[in-house]
């Protein structure tokens, strides 16, 4: 496999992982919204309510930064990152 193909395989792996986490917190947990809301979540809010106000939203912010860092590492590993600037 060429360097470029390996790079793309790894990038696809990262994409799948990112989308899996995204799926859990944007869709998965809301399949059980009613049941989950019986549980007390962070700061004392009902759990599902907390996810819709803060939880999922905050997780998405962190997920994007995590993804960006991982992808940068992959690019560097194969020597495909850009020179210099940020």
């Amino acid at each position, binding site marked *: 496999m060429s360097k470029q193909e390996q790079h793309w395989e790894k990038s696809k792996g990262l994409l799948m992982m990112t989308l899996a986490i995204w799926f859990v917190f944007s869709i998965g947990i*809301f399949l059980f919204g009613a049941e989950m809301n019986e549980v007390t979540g962070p700061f004392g809010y009902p759990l599902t309510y907390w996810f819709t106000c803060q939880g999922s939203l905050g997780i*998405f912010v962190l997920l994007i930064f995590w993804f960006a860092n991982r992808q940068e590492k992959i690019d560097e590993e194969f020597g495909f990152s850009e020179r210099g600037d940020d």
Partner: protein
Amino acid sequence: MIKGNFIDNLPKVYGIYTGGFLAFIIIMSIAEQMGMTAKTIGICFVAFTVAIYAIIGYLSRTAQADAYYVAGRQVPTVFNGMATAADWMSGASFVAMAGGIYFKGYGYMALLVGWTGGYVLVASLLAPYLRKFGCYTVPDFIGTRYGGNLSRFMAVVVLTVASFTYVTAQINATGTIASVALDIPFQYAVYVGLISILLCSMLGGMRGVTWTQVAQYIVLIIAYLLPVFWISNKMGAGFFPHFMLADEVSRIAELEAQFGFVKNSAENLKEVPKGLAGITKAHSAVNATPWAFISLALAMMMGTASLPHVMMRYFTTPSVKAARKSVGWSLFFIFLLYSSAPMLATLSKLSLIDPSLPTGIIGKSIAEVQSIDWYQNWNQANLMFVSDFNGNGTLELNEFFMGGKAVVLATPEIAGLPYVISGLVAAGGMAAAMSTADGLILAIANAISHDVYYKIIDPKAETAKRLVVARVLLVVIGFAGATIAALEIQGILGSVIWAFDFAMSGLFFPLVLGVWWKRANKEGAIAGMFLGLVSGAAYLVWVRTGGSGFLGITQLTFGIFGSAVSLVAMVVVSLMTQAPNAATQKMVDEVRIPAGKSILGKQH
């Protein structure tokens, strides 16, 4: 004071600007103490902020194509994040979101999840790759990746339908705010709003819009957060509302159980002015089926990744790496406002319905409520209404009605904050609506001027002529939007959601598969865009004209049907026709790695 290059001095420039704005708020509050009228304060806030944006717009004027279309591709990560957040958060987010949460609770909060979760798709599937491509507009990517004028033109059509639906709502919102703050009739206020919008974008294009959007973000976030924190502290609900309102949320649930949701008869509801609603849904309990919630969130997420005015903001970063990070910063800045909206809704609701609070009106006598100053003001503005349906002389929960906008606009006054806060909120709403309208009008005008005029009609046109065409289109599209907005056809929020559905119907899969599926070809993309948009629109018309719909897809989520058709059409047609040629395949390979030259040159 400022030396050297503008870009290097950004933190300093916007630091001074923020300090200046805070000083202005303090001056206004002193003026209020000295007896300045509420009306004058409102005019000062709106006029002062709009004047600043106009100055920034003038200073950013340019005659360069890459500065006009992509701000010279030198906008730093964090500032691009702020600009995107302002671009993104519309008048609807600012004025109507807290109201939606207040009235509809959980079912509505699917929008919060959708409008933030979509950025994960933007960051992982599209933005970095389109940045590497080096396009000026979204149709530029479609046209070059798939080849041919027809695919480019179809992309322009989808983009225009989606963005135009969206922009009329934004011009409508600027008009509403301008008409209240400046006290002029709505049909004129719409054009005042439009002229303010054009002042930001006409001379500098994307460069002007970028630097005004950063300034607008600063105004709108201060205008949103300051009242939320102030109200929370004043009510004794908590110093930091986001972490401390659990008691208030459970108190609302307790009161809901105590009052019950009494259903009003159709006859009684006829008395209620149009656009006002009562509290009929639980605040924090799950009140929607999983599919209703998930389908709405999913439609908004895919729509987010397809809307051109967001995507084109990531064309302005200096590198692919910066584009990825910038998506994270965008969402962080959006998160600051979105996570505050539910807190505002909670504070607003509790302060109105809790009889044990001095501001609570439920349980008071109707006559007493009708004599409250703020009730009279907002009743006159057609945003509040009470009526004694059961004739017992006391206000019940089901007898109190409010407009969605009132949650943001009236809560500061109800909580007893000084009027300067209401002026600030008006300036914030204006900033939110203007920044989104600017981004959208520019997206449409750029697509038509670059992709239709320059790429299809006259590829030999000189830069100066191209930019004249771009500016003329900007004005024409702005006026067309304002004219339609002046007719007041749909509500603000409804048309915003439709815009997402249109965008995802026609553009989501052609964009995503353009990067992630090498086999996708021109015929497939054209079929996907055309059939996606047409079937989505047909579904909307069908449901609007009394059709029953299927699979629980409503007029708010018709994009799910449109995009499914688009995906199937694109895959089937692509596989039935020839694979893209070697040059195109190589182009896709190039797009997938950050290093190396962009596909399209710096000037194209």
